[in-house]
């Protein structure tokens, strides 16, 4: 009995060690910050497909007004809409009355809360397209899987979409771990992926991926432009999440300082602190940041700006700990896009009190943008399908805009839809604003002009308390800072040379 007990304990110890080891592998900059939650049904649509949690097919019945499709040109060559194939099957996944699109989402897993709304954005847009007649008379069928943010599972699900489900092309694919792993496969098969988030740099360098968002590197530099020009910030600390997007933001800021971007230099970064997705407390993080800042010449331990390249849950904890300590940067907190949420205003009043900024690549229903017809349309469409979402959320807007890019390209191709024609059309988009929610995007084949860096633009928003600029909400509001800009070094990780 005693021996049996020992054996049991050994087994138990092995299991625990395995778990801890697995937990260790969750950390590290090789992991990609993206993912998707959701999987719930969408009102007014038919959901089919069974067996796999989070899997569904959306068939419903329209068309959402978007930006105008620009002219052709460029290395991809202009594409002329061909309407001679109405009612005919033209390629894999395209029948006379339907077109099958696919995607993978990290509905489960460690970052499901960060990018959860992307699925809702995609679903809202595609359902509205179906509700207004589809694309050239074809209804959109949308098939998606949860890959749990696991690279190999994601790659396998993408293969399944292509080979078994026979989707025509992929849309959004916010589960970028899997997308990254499947890049070579998609290039080889020439399956286009339209409207990715752009959160990681590899998406801009893949032949078959057309990101709709601004790259993390560019977003970081746009934040620096705001901090140096508007706030006159000269010293910075960066607190970054130990995932790939956090790492890219950190790298962009370091490279910018190294190359003299906006008058910065290597001594401008006075503190650099990595955090884990499961960071239990921020008291010691702030102590470390202050200690580093003092050692690097900031006598009071308070840099001009602290850049938070982290997720919302950690940001809220960070703000709460800073408030307890009475700690704040001299000129402001600079948050990443995931922090542009009502959740942050609600749970981190200190962010409102201290005027935290965040970024987005899309036109939010805030300030001067709120009355733009395209933004009003976005609000109306999303509200129609999802009543309780945070409409400012850049991920929700990214999903919606990504789906819009995919549909706009299909529209441009005409009824004779083939992958080859879609690729050609995507690579020749010029000054086109999908759903009207971005600055005009231009894509060209890799190696020509902007390549796949379609979006280089960013807005900076700031948390303001009730009573400021017409804000009537008790939790505060986000205001758009007028002087927003695009990144002149969008292709270059080492600007200023």
């Amino acid at each position: 009995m005693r021996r049996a007990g020992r054996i049991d304990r050994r087994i138990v110890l092995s299991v625990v060690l395995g778990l801890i080891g697995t937990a260790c592998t969750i950390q590290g900059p090789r992991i990609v910050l993206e993912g998707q939650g959701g999987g719930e049904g969408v009102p007014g649509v038919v959901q089919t497909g069974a067996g796999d949690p989070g899997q569904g097919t959306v068939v419903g019945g329209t068309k959402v007004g978007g930006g105008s499709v620009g002219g052709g040109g460029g290395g991809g060559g202009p594409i002329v809409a061909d309407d001679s194939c109405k009612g005919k099957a033209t390629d894999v996944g395209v029948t006379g009355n339907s077109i099958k699109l696919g995607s993978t989402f990290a509905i489960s897993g460690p970052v499901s809360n960060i990018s959860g709304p992307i699925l809702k954005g995609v679903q809202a847009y595609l359902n509205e397209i179906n509700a207004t007649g589809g694309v050239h008379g074809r209804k959109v069928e949308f098939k998606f899987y949860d890959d749990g943010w696991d690279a190999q599972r994601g790659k396998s699900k993408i293969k399944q979409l292509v080979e078994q489900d026979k989707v025509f092309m992929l849309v959004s694919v916010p589960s970028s771990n899997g997308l990254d792993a499947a890049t070579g496969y998609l290039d080889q098969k020439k399956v286009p992926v339209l409207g990715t988030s752009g959160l990681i740099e590899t998406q801009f360098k893949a032949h078959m991926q057309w990101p709709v968002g601004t790259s993390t590197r560019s977003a970081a530099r746009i934040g620096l432009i705001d901090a140096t020009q508007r706030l006159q910030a000269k010293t910075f600390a960066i607190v970054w999440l130990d995932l790939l997007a956090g790492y890219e933001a950190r790298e962009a800021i370091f490279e910018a300082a190294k190359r003299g971007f906006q008058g910065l230099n290597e001594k401008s970064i006075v503190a650099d602190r990595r955090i884990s997705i499961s960071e239990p407390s921020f008291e010691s993080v702030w102590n470390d940041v202050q200690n580093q800042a003092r050692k690097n010449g900031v006598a009071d331990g308070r840099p001009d700006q602290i850049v938070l390249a982290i997720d919302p849950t950690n940001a809220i904890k960070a703000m709460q700990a800073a408030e307890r300590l009475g700690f704040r940067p001299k000129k402001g907190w600079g948050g990443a896009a995931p922090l542009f949420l009502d959740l942050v205003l609600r749970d981190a009043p200190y962010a409102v009190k201290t005027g935290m900024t965040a970024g987005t690549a899309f036109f939010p229903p805030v300030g001067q943008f709120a009355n733009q017809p395209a933004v009003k349309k976005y609000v109306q469409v999303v509200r129609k399908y999802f009543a309780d979402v945070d409409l400012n959320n850049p991920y929700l807007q990214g999903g919606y805009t990504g789906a819009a890019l995919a549909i706009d390209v299909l529209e441009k191709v005409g009824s004779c839809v083939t992958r080859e024609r879609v690729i050609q059309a995507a690579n020749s988009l010029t000054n086109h604003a999908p759903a009207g929610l971005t600055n005009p995007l231009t894509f060209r084949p890799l190696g020509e002009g902007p390549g796949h860096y379609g979006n280089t633009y960013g807005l900076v928003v700031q948390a303001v308390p009730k009573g400021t600029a017409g804000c009537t909400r008790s939790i505060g509001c986000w205001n758009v800072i007028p002087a927003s800009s695009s990144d002149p070094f969008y292709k270059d990780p080492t600007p200023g040379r």
Partner: protein
Amino acid sequence: MKFYIQNIILGLPIGVIWALLATSVVMIYRASRVLNLAVGGISMISAYMLFQMANDERWGIPLPIAVVLTILFAAAIGWIIERILLRPLRDRPTLVSVIMTIGILSLTTEVASMVWTVDRQPAPNLLPTGAIRFWGIALGVDQILTFFITMAIVGVVIYLFRATTLGVAMRAVSDDRRAALLMGVPVDRVSSLTWIIGSVLGAIAGILVAPQVGLTPLGMVFQSIPALAAALFGGLVSIELAFGGAMVLGVLWSVLPGVELGAWRLHDHVIGVQQIAIFALVVVFLVVRWQQLFGSAAKEEEI
């Protein structure tokens, strides 16, 4: 030096979070020989239940009543786990029960995601939220109180095992169920009580810690991993050593990123230094054998 001492102090509230969860793990393992990997799930789902009941936009039940109901809910969860899920597996290898707890963890996480979404929810805070600032650092009043509550819980659990009839019965059942049965110990009832108490401990951990770490489906689950490591320091049977282990891990988590060896900063050169340290420390501890380090005290605990 001041910086390191500050960070040692700031590591204690982190250790307390893990100690609370580790206490639940050890409690159940010691009495049932089942490693409860679902501890994070039970804590999390209990914290969500309190949120559901106490939040004004949800059920709006007064907080004290909601806390009592949450404790009862956790007790019911513990009873269900033991009576319905684990008891039928009693004659199977223990590993089967351990795998069942993984299933429970997965189930609770999915249920929480479906019911309350994956977004962070505002967890009700039972403790005052002010701060005490001293010597250039600040500790939350809630963190300090959680520390003392954890100490009290550890004391109660130790007392339970050492000085109560129930504790003796729990140990008897875990050592040899058949012999305990022959001696007239109500084995089934003791097993149920073990899981009920263990789940209530997990719920208390969840209720106290959720406002600090954030109420999300995975938040508590993430915290349960270092807690399991802490439980290993106690060989899964010693609550005192698990508590001490959790404190050591908390301090390491806080201190390590700031460690500098000349111009060489650990944070800049070792990716995931804290996770690696936890893993390495547990491995070293097991290799050296904790029994040899802590000798008779640990042996007494085991018997």
